[in-house]
């Protein structure tokens, strides 16, 4: 939808209001408010260890959302629906390669990440060389991945996580924080550096806001877009390995629950699905926000039905805060 011609007629709002309307700020305020609400509903909700547990869950979601975020910023209706399948596949493969042995962790990570990268590569090639819309390509790939999961589950037993991996995910590693949170912080720094300080990062925004102009300016549009999907596959695979560490063993379709929520985290973080804008810091806040919301809903004693209705309605209300399209004025 072209909105270039729409002219904004509102007067420049004051700086304070502008600041308060920034997605990251909104998300942070909401996080604090939700923590307070949780504490009020069930004392101990906002205790340090409880918050750490929430952050561990959020980091898996956040790592999946990192790849999703890159693909979305890259524009051309960029979206990756196959991440859920890659998370599951990575978890099951890594579980089988390490099968409880510490020495198997490194090979397992390598296998999982390579497979994730490979599927990302397939996605990227289909999207760039054959010019299949990302939604269609990754949707089709999701079907293939789900089929592959059925085959694999029939062939091999579900593997186990090595104790060291579980410790890395669930036990404090440094300054009281589990390793996975450090990993997430590292990914956050990596993403910030990638997006704001590298040529590759600038080019992602360039192809996201105007692919044609970027192409004219000599940006290797196709190579970059393939790279984005490969990165998305890699991040999803990493999240799959972490999830294996979190649950101890890989079970069926664990990744499915990350497919659309990873997109929601990106949107709540202030990256519009139209691409060319946004960043990862907001997405991290978005992931935390989603996880806290889900956690509050499991804390209060309501039925599954009520929980889902409140969750859906809250997501809609949150989206009203930001991520709305521009009105059409003649």
């Amino acid at each position, binding site marked *: *939808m*072209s*909105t270039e*011609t*729409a002219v904004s007629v509102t007067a420049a709002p004051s700086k304070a209001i502008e600041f308060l309307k920034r997605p990251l700020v909104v998300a942070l305020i909401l996080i604090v408010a939700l923590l307070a609400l949780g504490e009020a509903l069930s004392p101990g909700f906002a205790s340090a260890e409880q918050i750490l547990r929430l952050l561990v869950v959020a980091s898996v979601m956040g790592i999946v959302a990192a790849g999703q975020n890159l693909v979305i910023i890259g524009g051309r*209706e960029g*979206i990756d*629906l196959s991440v859920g399948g890659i998370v599951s596949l990575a978890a099951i493969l890594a579980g089988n390669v390490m099968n409880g042995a510490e020495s198997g962790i490194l090979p397992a990570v390598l296998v999982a990440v390579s497979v994730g990268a490979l599927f990302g590569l397939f996605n990227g090639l*289909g999207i760039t060389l*054959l*010019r*299949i*819309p990302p*939604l*269609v*390509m990754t*949707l*089709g*790939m*999701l*079907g*293939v*991945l*789900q*089929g*592959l999961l*059925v*085959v694999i589950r*029939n*062939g091999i037993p579900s593997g186990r996580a090595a104790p060291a991996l579980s410790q890395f995910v669930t036990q404090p590693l440094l300054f009281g924080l589990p390793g996975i949170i450090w990993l997430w912080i590292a990914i956050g720094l990596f993403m910030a550096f990638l997006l704001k300080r590298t040529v590759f990062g600038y080019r992602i925004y360039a192809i996201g806001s105007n692919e044609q102009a970027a192409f004219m300016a000599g940006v290797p549009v196709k190579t970059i877009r393939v790279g984005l999907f490969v990165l998305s596959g890699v991040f999803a695979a990493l999240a799959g390995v972490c999830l294996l560490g979190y649950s101890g063993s890989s079970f069926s379709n664990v990744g499915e629950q990350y497919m*659309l929520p990873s*997109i*929601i985290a990106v*949107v709540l973080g202030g990256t*519009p*699905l139209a691409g060319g804008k946004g960043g990862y810091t907001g997405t991290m806040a978005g992931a935390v926000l989603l996880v806290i919301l889900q956690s509050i809903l499991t804390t209060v004693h309501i*039925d*599954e*039905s*009520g*929980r*889902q*209705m*409140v*969750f*859906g*309605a809250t*997501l*809609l209300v949150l*989206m*009203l805060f930001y*991520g*709305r*399209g*521009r*009105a*059409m004025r*003649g």
Partner: protein
Amino acid sequence: MQQIISTPAMNTSPLKSVLQRFPFVPALIILIALVALNGFFQPRSLSFGSITGLFSTYLALMLLAVAQTYVVFSGDIDLSVGSIVSLVNVVIIVLMEKWGGGGLTVIAACLVGILTGLACGVANGIMIAGLRLQAIVATFATSIFFTGLALYVLPVAGTPAPEAYWMTYGGTYFGIPFVFYVVAAVAIVLGVLARMRLTTQMLAVGDDAMAAFQTGLPVTLIRIKGYVLCGLFSALAALCITGDTASGDPLVGGKMTLYSVAAVVLGGSALSGGAGTVTGSLIGALIIGLINSLVFFVGTPSEWQNLVQGLAILTALMAGILVSRGARA
């Protein structure tokens, strides 16, 4: 295929003009090939009984593909169609049980079910066109809400449909199975809709919303109408799936959402909006159904069936897009 791919250079080739007018022709070719393959591997699959079975199983997906098409026309998408199917399914099951399951109550329950679907469509339309939320994430959020409602209406799967309902759906009248009456009725409704101004308006909005707005079209209202139609056909899909499964299940439609999107794309409609046909989506849904039965007839080991299906659907999606782009470019 080769002929089609090699023609884009010639602007006036007759093949291309046919493809432009009937964008579902590639899908139709795939469909015919699949029917032939099915007949080759399992001659009985071409019998009247088998075809009736195919329709009664996949009529729900066909209707859901139609539902999805009307939002895709105007450049939107609806990821909540599956949850609308679930919601309508449990609503009519619970009502029919409560009201006794007689002939009239079945009809009354179906009407309430259709109203439920319409209400879901209105809600989606207001969220996306009215409040300008992004369609993919907003309909995902509404799908969570609708699923919650469905779980509230019927927490666990299992309540059976009254005999009057599924006996009618599976029955035969004047020598013709009931599903074909439904197919005929739907075909007439779709034919009328295709000739209505609304279809052209939805396509115009999908092609270029700004241009449509500047020509004076009520863009927001047209997009809302698309979602309402989507809700209506999702409800009809739910009535069919209830006839097929004869029971209530608050999660029955969940898996169908993505298939409905795939069917629309297989049918040659552009997900970006502005180009497409409902006929194509119907063919797309049948293609998915026939791929599933073909994979079975070829004798694929059961654990490999999903993978082969996935690969076949991905291949068909890619081929369909390449061919229809050749026609449009």
